[in-house]
């Protein structure tokens, strides 16, 4: 008896796989745009995997961050590959999420009963931008440093709470060690964990309502 049969006999897994995967039917007229959410999820998984690998050599400290990245790029076998997949993947993920949102918008897939899908998706897009912004500071390069200075300055222009928000993000008056620490915590723990939960909700909602019919049907 195969392992699969052993498992199936106990928890009836095959029936679930059949109903949810191999024999899950979708509208016939479905088009390429419908693949973008899945693409974004795939890139997210790649980011999590390469991100965990980067953690092996990355040192989140202002004295060591830059050199640890140089070491990944020049000394660690295939370090350049892991890092560039992560860096390029970040841009690709934003592209995928944005195009996904645009397609949902112009096909009208957000309409009743799928408003919750849109709201959870909107939060996921914000978090994607947030994780990319926080990751960008981690190499502690000139580009990272000044990019973050500008981005946190932008937060400082929010009416009323702006200056306080700016200080809260930076952990002090200017971008420095405390900023690196909080961006690091956001980048590798807070945001990805929140995203996993929201993706689970997003997928659950999609399965509950079924996928939308393309327009004109």
């Amino acid at each position, binding site marked *: 008896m195969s392992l699969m049969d052993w498992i199936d006999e106990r928890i009836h897994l095959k029936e679930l796989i059949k109903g949810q995967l191999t024999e899950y039917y979708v509208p016939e007229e479905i088009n390429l745009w419908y693949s973008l959410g899945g693409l974004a999820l795939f890139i997210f998984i790649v980011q999590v995997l390469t991100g965990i690998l980067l953690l092996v050599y990355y040192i989140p400290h202002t004295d060591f961050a830059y050199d640890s990245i140089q070491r990944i790029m020049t000394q660690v076998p295939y370090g350049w590959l*892991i890092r560039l997949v992560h860096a390029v993947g970040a841009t690709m993920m934003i592209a995928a999420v944005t195009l996904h949102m645009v397609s949902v918008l112009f096909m009208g897939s957000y309409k009743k009963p799928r408003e919750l899908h849109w709201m959870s998706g909107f939060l996921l897009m914000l978090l994607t931008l947030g994780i990319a912004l926080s990751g960008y500071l981690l190499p502690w390069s000139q580009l990272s440093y000044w990019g973050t200075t500008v981005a946190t300055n932008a937060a400082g222009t929010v009416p009323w709470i702006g200056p306080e928000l700016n200080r809260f993000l930076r952990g002090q008056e200017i971008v420095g060690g405390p900023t690196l620490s909080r961006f690091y915590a956001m980048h590798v723990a807070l945001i990805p964990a929140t995203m996993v939960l929201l993706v689970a909700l997003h997928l659950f909602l999609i399965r509950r309502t079924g996928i939308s019919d393309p327009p004109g049907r």
Partner: protein
Amino acid sequence: MGEGRSEQEILLESRRKFLGQCLAVLGATALGGALYPVVQYLRPLEADKAARKVEVDLGEIPMGTAKTILYRGLPTLVINATEGVVAISAVCTHLGCIVKWQEERKMLFCPCHAARFALDGRVLGGPAPAPLEVHPVTVAGGKVMLGA
């Protein structure tokens, strides 16, 4: 099932199976290709297996004392003894603890199960089954050189 099926159905099913197998082979190849760099990335760095050639300043080791350094990535004692400078592995041959140089007793002592070794690596007592490895050194210009 079986008799009731048309030729068309049987053909479709065997094609489905064949395509599935092709997909499995492709998938396994892609997975292998992706896994190879990951394994290489995670392997301990050769460069960190460290210095095959080490230089120690004799000035850092007053007469009668010893200094623990890393030689080929392993703890090694450089001892400035009256008999001359000795470099000897500090990894106990019993269960691998790090042995210490005892200045007064002029021997190496393992804190784990009390194995004792002489300056030439010989076992003087305790559970150690084999002598410690002594590395040849050259002393020149106030420097001790290992593994030239």
